[in-house]
């Protein structure tokens, strides 16, 4: 959607933030929490994965930015009837 902001910025921004929060949490997970997750450092791994998704979205936006807004008149909204 040219006239609209780009969705990749929203997904990228939110997941980067989630990634940072959850990764930091994962670095300081207590043994009890790791125990609950069956020994998997799930906060760390999911945090890094979400961070990667967020950064990839932002990278995609950077490499392939939205086309500049065209100034053509928008098409007539209503049709027959």
């Amino acid at each position, binding site marked *: 959607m040219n006239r609209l902001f780009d969705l990749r910025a*929203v997904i990228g921004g939110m*997941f980067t933030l989630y990634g940072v929060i959850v990764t930091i949490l994962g670095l300081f997970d207590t043994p009890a929490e790791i125990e*609950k997750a069956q020994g998997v450092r799930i906060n760390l791994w999911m945090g890094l994965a979400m961070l990667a998704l967020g950064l990839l979205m932002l990278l995609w936006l950077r490499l392939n930015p939205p086309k500049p807004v065209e100034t053509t008149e928008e098409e007539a909204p209503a049709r027959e009837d």
Partner: protein
Amino acid sequence: MSGLRLDVDFVDYLILAIYFITVLGVGFMARRAIKNSSDFFLSGRSMPAWVTGLAFVSANLGALEIIGMAANGAQYGLMTLHYYWVGAVPAMVFLGIVMMPFYYGSKVRSVPEFLRRRFNRPTHLFNAVSFAVAQVLIAGVNLYALALILQALLGWPLWLSIVIGAAIVLSYITLGGLSSAIYNEVLQFFVILAGLIPITIIGLVKVGGWHGLVEKVQAGPIGDAALHTFSQTGSSDNPLGANWIGIIFGLGFVLSFGYWTTNFAEVQRALSAKDMSAARRTPIIGAFPKLLIPAVTVIPGLIALVTVQGLGAKEGDLTYNNAIPLLMRDLLPNGVLGVAVTGLVASFMAGMAANVSGFNTVFTYDIWQSYVRKDRPDGYYLRVGRIATIVGVIVGIGTAFIAAGFDNIMNYIQALFSLFNAPLFATFIVGMFWKRMTPWAGFFSLVLGFLASLTLYLGYLGDVFAFNSDLEESFWGAGAAFVTAVVVAVVVTLFTTSKPDDELRGLVYGLAGPSTGVDVIVSGDKVWWRNPVILGAIALVLAVLLYIPFW
């Protein structure tokens, strides 16, 4: 209900709050792009295919779907896969390849509008009103289910969840219309996956990987039957209680094609795409995630079956519907727990937003503009759309409290689908491929098909007809509706007058308008990875291949 209570902390709430703020922010930002009613109701037909495709699958990925499919995974085993690979993917591919040229090419703004141009105004009004009512009812069910789950997981009172959920969905749709619904659906898609993936990973580690899961399931209550999909469907003696004919034709053809190809809440996502090629690819792009979603719904269901002692109770905390919440409670540490809660909340809002944005479009264009106030300036209808959104959500809140009176919400929804979508699909498919079908044939096939299904449903409720399960009733109800609608369409056509060919151009196969000739349907786009037919064929082949290990 305290048994399901999650041990959430500050970070979990922070994650949920960030999500709410982002969703509202999308609404405010989308608002600036809205200049006319087409922007509000159809996103100005400007969305790229990856966005509409993910929104297409996300609109279906409501929490009822996720919780329900995990519940089915625990109850029926891998036969639940049929809901995805037979019951969704073929219909999505069919919509993209065969039906989308008619929908998008005829420039209609809604599914009911297609019916008005193909048939007549009574058909249109019947469908528009029944769709609007059904959407509000389903939005209410989503809201009520959201409130139930938040009460169980977080201890929030029902009214608080209902008001917060409704207020957020109301705000972002009133502000940003369909664009904001679609953008948020794509965001929800990723959040839902981020919430479900850790449940699956930790669950699999807990049961000793895939092999551990297989061994434990074989020793479990369903036994080896839980690990097969087709090999035991020669008779109805299998966990699902349905044979292959019922699965392929009932679920795979009538129910699934009815839902995916005529449900405007879904089709609307494709109509907002920027061009014909993107519109046709929308459901097909959606089919690829749909192929893989069972990995994070059905498999957690099986994990819950073998790890949660006593799962499958008729009531209380251990019902099948609580498979996912129970795993969240048992396995997720704070942090990913917050993401999973956010994913569940997101999926409820996705479902509800899809209903509300479908409702406001049909109400404004197909009811208000067509029958109540014609020929007003465009800005007037934009205002009507915003007011319809508010009214729809408020009525939805009311029906949420009605839904509280039903003990099985899923069955209520299934019943609605088999009542409305199965006859609609029959009317559509005959009308699209048989140009002689008359306007009144459209009307009567729709109404009598609906009545046939309603008769079976009421008869089943009143013990006049006996079926093995609610599921079986919905298969037969949909089948009866379909057959009735087709027969009535043919019979009425013989006694009434067809529309002249010129009025049907672009709406019926064989009467090519600019967009519905054979060449358009077969070709599509220049490069192969944007060609709907090739992409659709890949999706179908994958659906078949995925069945092989679980035969």
